[in-house]
């Protein structure tokens, strides 16, 4: 009976810690002095700066763009000046440096250009998608996939349902919850715009049932809109995963290795919907987002509206600083977030939370041998056998790990959370996946190299032939002129 009540197989109930921040209004970060905008995106795409160092920039100005729609354009979050383009430590677990634009801020909060509010009903779907692309919007749930590209692909796949993800199943994070409570109307407008862009029939906003106030506010906002419905889903980690939300709402399973558009469903986050509203209605690019600053080491945990590129240290300082030593800083939630190498790294569009965790909130580091208890198998929301995948990853047998479903793993961390032996299962999977990716890209590179040598050999052969032909032609044509030239040479 209990099992039948579960919205999907597996999943865990981690302690929420949401009470730290969920009842406080979203604050605005005091305007930071400097901002650091990363020119290299997480997917590896590089952006090219459109302004020179020393140039004045205005709020909302397009600063950098890439060569394709997968490289999301960057806009200036402030009025000020481009101070430098230099290597800055990025919010990456290894603390690698990437090329960043360093902006100074003059504190003027006005937008550089004012746009007349635009009625989305008068736009074509393609125009809406173009506005979303131009605004540099990415999925704000954490994956940071370009939203415009997603909308375009879903439109081509003839999606019929837009599912809005208000799951927010990660512990500590309340930024989506607060946004739904405070900006329900904007979210709903964004949803209507996306519906028009997609040509979909209906939208369902799914919210976990532990967010009662958010559900009430959203229900109010959609009261007179028959196309949009609201669904409360049980709170169970990882409800925020696209596949699991779809299963909980519609009862359908996305086949492994397929996208949700296969079922005619597109999933977008609530914060993304709000960003779409600002982009379409006011032509405002994505230059800020709500970030939860929480954890037991933070003096006053809370949510902040943060310009993209603000240093993590400034976020923590605004929330009163640290009251005790933080054992670890995390970008994102504690389950899937990444450890930050230092507090002096800039936030980017994909970071929805900054946690300063104390020693007691961290898991014991000491791990033991696997006892074959099967807890991880029960917890795995994808129905995999994590202990088996980890065992193969440990001996570097990637094909076997893949055979046991490594490619379908969400890296959600449910298995690591329940493991009584404290085995760092997810790190094994990350390691194995990274190796498989490296192999794949090496294979591509080597295939490309082969093509290049073949092309080169062809080209050299052609060149040699052309030379020969030219020589022959010259020799046959040139009998007399050659003699004449020889004669003139003799005269000199």
């Amino acid at each position, binding site marked *: 009976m209990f099992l039948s009540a579960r919205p999907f197989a597996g999943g865990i109930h981690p302690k929420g810690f949401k009470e730290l921040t969920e009842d406080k209004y979203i604050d605005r970060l005091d305007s930071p002095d400097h901002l650091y905008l990363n020119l*290299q995106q*997480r*997917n*590896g795409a590089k952006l090219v700066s459109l302004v020179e160092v020393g140039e004045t920039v205005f709020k909302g100005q397009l600063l950098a763009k890439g060569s394709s729609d997968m490289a999301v354009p960057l806009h200036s979050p402030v009025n000020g000046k481009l101070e430098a383009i230099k290597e800055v430590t*990025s919010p*990456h*677990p*290894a603390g*690698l440096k*990437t090329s960043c634009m360093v902006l100074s801020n003059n504190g003027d909060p006005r937008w550089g250009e004012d746009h007349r509010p635009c009625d989305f009903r008068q736009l074509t779907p393609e125009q809406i998608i173009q506005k979303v692309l131009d605004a540099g919007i990415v999925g704000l749930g954490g994956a940071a996939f370009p939203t415009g590209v997603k909308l375009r692909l879903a439109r081509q796949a003839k999606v019929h349902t837009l599912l809005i993800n208000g799951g927010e199943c990660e512990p500590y994070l309340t930024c989506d919850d607060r946004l739904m409570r405070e900006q329900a109307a904007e979210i709903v407008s964004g949803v209507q715009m996306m519906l028009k862009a997609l040509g979909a029939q209906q939208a369902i906003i799914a919210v976990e049932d532990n967010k009662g106030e958010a559900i009430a506010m959203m229900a109010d906002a959609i009261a007179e809109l028959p196309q949009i419905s609201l669904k409360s889903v049980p709170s169970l980690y990882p409800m925020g995963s696209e596949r699991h939300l779809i299963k909980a709402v519609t009862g359908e399973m996305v086949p492994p290795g397929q996208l949700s558009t296969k079922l005619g469903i597109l999933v977008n986050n609530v914060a993304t919907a709000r960003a779409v509203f600002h982009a379409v209605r006011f032509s405002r690019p994505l230059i800020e987002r709500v970030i939860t600053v929480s954890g037991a080491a933070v003096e006053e945990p809370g949510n902040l509206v943060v310009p993209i590129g603000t240093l993590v240290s400034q976020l923590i300082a605004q929330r009163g600083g640290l009251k005790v030593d933080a054992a670890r800083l995390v970008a994102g939630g504690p389950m899937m977030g990444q450890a930050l190498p230092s507090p002096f790294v800039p936030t980017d569009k994909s970071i929805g939370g900054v946690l300063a965790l104390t020693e007691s909130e961290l898991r014991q580091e*000491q*791990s*033991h041998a696997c006892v074959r208890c099967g807890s991880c198998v029960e917890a795995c929301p994808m129905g995999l056998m994590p202990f088996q995948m980890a065992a193969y*990853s*440990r001996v*570097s047998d*990637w*094909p076997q790990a893949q055979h046991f479903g490594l490619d379908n793993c969400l890296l959600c961390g449910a298995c690591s959370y329940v493991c009584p032996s404290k*085995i*760092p299962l997810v*790190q*094994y999977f*990350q*390691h194995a996946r*990274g*190796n498989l*990716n*490296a*192999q*794949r*890209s*090496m*294979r*591509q*590179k*080597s295939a*490309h*190299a*082969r093509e*290049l*040598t*073949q*092309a*080169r050999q062809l080209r050299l052969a052609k060149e040699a032939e052309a030379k020969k032909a030219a020589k022959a032609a010259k020799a046959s044509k040139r009998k007399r002129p050659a003699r004449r030239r020889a004669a003139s040479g003799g005269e000199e």
Partner: protein
Amino acid sequence: MMIVLSLLALTLLGASLGGALGWASKTLKVEGDPRVDEIEAMLPGGQCGQCGEPGCRQAAEKMVSGSLSPNCCPPGGKGLAASVAELLGISLNDDGEQVTMIAVIDESNCSGCTRCFKACPFDAIVGASKQMHTVISQVCTGCNLCAKACPQGCLTMQPQAVQPHTWNWPKPQVA
């Protein structure tokens, strides 16, 4: 009579089978191991000689015969080693972290002699006579042929810088 008949039958049988075998050995002859062709098709084909063989064909032959390990080809890297090992049905111990080397030109010292450009089997170097040359790092396989050709000594092989999207989690160190 019986003896004569059986002798005849056996002789005929022997002669026809022998003839068939002789014909088959000529017409159905296999030139070398077909796996050599398959492996050669997988190799990058730069003929760089880093494996110690004169060319990729010879390397493929040695790999099939077992005297060369599948991970002997630096330009092919781990991906190639894994696919060759799979084809040959042997296991690889690839725990050692392989560092990809790529050519880097100190552009301020480049004289534009075009020798590196001519030496590169992959067209990974761009430049022209008496102009600065540079390496397209995404294409460079680290075959080292250009470094040997450079008379200025301004072309060196350097480990490829780790990028955030190519960085990989280390294997957990657990007891």
